[in-house]
């Protein structure tokens, strides 16, 4: 049988062997945690605690009334030592609450439900919202918002994304193996909220142990192995692979009758609804060529990167580049003081050799980028438009449909910075649209 997949894509070196088999290690909370107020797509939360306040685990420390946002909870018990802008994985400073851990792990009152599937839809949705759950695959879109599509939308499928197509990362993989029950329960809860008729969990076929673990407990849920190909985990690509449906250009998945959530988000939903635990921890893969003992950690939100790398045995040599997320779409970091936020799927430390950039030479019009573009675009043309500031033409050629997966830059034999210029064009087009509408 042919494995389901999408058009285009690439086969990078996956480098997952080092951590794919290592069980999730629970990382003790560090002494000081920096909890950012900006951990999701949408409006950042505003701190509701002040310097000197004592906080308990799970206490709300940041919230906002804005529609697209998520509250932030304290990951430890202790004392607030500062409320000030601190370095964020995006590179600039964002408002954060700094908490001195007292080591007692005193919780706020938690509400348990032994059979959470019996709860009514609105109660589950409210619990997901209050727990501050956001897309844990790296997107960070508030889960409660994503689970509330417009009233007239018919949701046929809830697809759980277990592809984890980024090289190096194994956090979702380990979650599926070790927390299969919780992932399945989370899927059921989310399906109840959005009214999906069918639940599908899509897993890349390079994770047979995860597929087996889920299949043993699946019941009515369908576990679909999908081809091991990057970017299989892209929302639109996954929908196409699993259901054969296309999300319209610039559209949202519900327009194709689907809602996609990450498997780690499903785990967080189970934790929130069943155990009353807000989103204060996540699984982070700490790996890369220069890390001594690559591992998967269950870390508290707000843990500095340095602490994680130390727990992974430190560096063999000075790293050339440190990434949040995988090497394809990950974001370079400038400091190890940066804390973990809800969207940090992994930390990858690459050696100087691995992180050097090849010199780019002129385009030979081989169109390999066209062959691999999963969004059916012509990256070579878009790059040329971007370099020559032809924003209108770039928009005409569909620049805004680019999902920024980087397949074009990866495959290019001339090593051209294709994605960089497409991104520039996207930003300029968005800015021009904003000017037009204002």
């Amino acid at each position, binding site marked *: 049988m042919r494995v389901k997949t999408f058009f285009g894509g690439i086969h990078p070196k996956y480098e997952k062997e080092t951590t794919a088999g290592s069980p999730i290690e629970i990382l003790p909370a560090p002494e000081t945690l920096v909890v950012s107020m900006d951990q999701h797509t949408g409006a950042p939360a505003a701190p509701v605690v002040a310097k000197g306040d004592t906080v308990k685990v799970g206490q709300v420390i940041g919230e906002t009334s804005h529609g697209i946002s998520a509250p932030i909870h304290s990951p430890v018990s202790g004392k607030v030592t500062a409320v000030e802008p601190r370095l964020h994985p995006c*590179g*600039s400073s964002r408002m954060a609450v700094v908490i001195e851990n007292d080591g007692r792990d005193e919780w706020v009152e938690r509400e348990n439900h032994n059979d959470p599937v019996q709860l009514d839809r609105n109660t589950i949705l409210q619990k997901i919202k209050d727990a501050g759950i956001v897309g844990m695959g790296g997107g960070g879109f508030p889960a409660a918002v994503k689970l509330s599509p417009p009233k007239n939308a018919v949701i046929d499928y809830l697809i759980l994304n277990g592809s984890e197509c980024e090289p190096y990362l194994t956090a979702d993989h380990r979650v599926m193996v070790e927390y299969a029950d919780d992932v399945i329960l989370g899927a059921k809860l989310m399906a109840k909220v959005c009214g999906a008729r069918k639940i599908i969990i899509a897993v890349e076929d390079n994770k047979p142990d995860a597929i087996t673990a889920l299949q043993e407990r699946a019941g009515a849920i369908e576990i679909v192995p999908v081809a091991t190909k990057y970017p299989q985990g892209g929302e639109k690509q996954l929908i196409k692979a699993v259901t054969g449906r296309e999300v319209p250009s610039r559209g949202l998945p519900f327009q194709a009758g689907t809602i996609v959530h990450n498997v780690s988000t499903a785990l967080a939903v189970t934790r929130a609804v069943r155990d009353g635990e807000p989103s204060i921890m996540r699984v982070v893969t700490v790996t890369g060529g220069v890390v001594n003992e690559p591992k998967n950690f269950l870390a508290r939100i707000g843990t500095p990167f340095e602490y994680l790398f130390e727990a992974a045995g430190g560096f063999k040599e000075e790293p050339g580049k440190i990434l949040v997320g995988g090497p394809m779409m990950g974001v370079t*970091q*400038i400091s190890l003081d940066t804390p973990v936020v809800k969207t940090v799927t992994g930390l990858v430390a690459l050696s100087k050799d691995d992180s050097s*950039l090849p010199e780019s030479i002129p385009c030979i019009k081989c169109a390999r980028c066209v062959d691999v573009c999963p969004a059916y675009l012509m990256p070579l043309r878009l790059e040329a438009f971007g370099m020559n*500031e032809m924003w209108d033409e770039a928009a005409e050629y569909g620049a805004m449909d680019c999902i920024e997966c980087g397949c074009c830059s990866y495959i290019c034999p001339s090593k051209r*910075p294709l994605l960089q210029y497409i991104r*520039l064009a996207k930003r300029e087009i968005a800015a021009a649209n904003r000017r037009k509408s204002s």
Partner: protein
Amino acid sequence: MSTTVVSLISMGTMGALFALGLAVASKKFAVETDPRVDEIEEVLPGVNCGACGFAGCRSFAEGVASGKAPTNGCPVGGARVAKLVAEILGVEDQGSAGRKVAQVLCKGGHEEAKRRGDYMGPQDCRIANAVQGGDKGCSYGCLGYGTCASVCPFDAIVMNENGLPVVLEDKCTACGKCVAACPRDIIVLVDEVQGVHIRCRSEELGRAVRSVCSVGCIACRRCEKACPTGAITVEDNLARIDYDKCINCRKCVEVCPMNTIEAQEGKPVIKKKSAS
């Protein structure tokens, strides 16, 4: 009849018919154009820079002819073109709108300002700025990858060895392309006569500025106190100059401990300044 005569007659008749058709069409389908538009376009610089707010020189010429644009609306042409345009239209010359030039409000080049990372991507400030907010230690300062110089249609900006853009004022036409392209918003268009500039945009506290740059504004307020016309105010940890009040007296330049404020040579003190 010989072949020559036949062909002469037939070709001649056909030619006459086509000529007649064309003559009729040119009268019947003639598009009325304002002859002044062509004349105005003739005197414009013709670089289609868009600084006038129109799509190009032709469209500006149409705008002027139809009264939608002022006769001195072309900043590139200046007083000379304004006069010619006014002559074509037969209206009074309004003079030049006051020549402006671009000023770069950052002095922190390779020597003065620290970098916090090694950027290896394409040499474009806008792309560099999107990677972790740029590799410069100062999140307000010039990134130095020369996007302003590369977008300038008049070659009026060059990058110096210190990694800072230098505006060649005699070439600058204030078209504003560099202003729009700069991701750090550190280029502004200022009246040519103004010769004193606070070359810093950082709103960080003094200590934070010093830690990344040796020529950044630390908001010590000395310039504010020294200014005789009240042109300088310190707001959000940054000295800001009101060019409507500044008379190029250079008192602020003398007191600035960081050398952030710079006086340009060849721009004398302005004696009379109409209060605005």
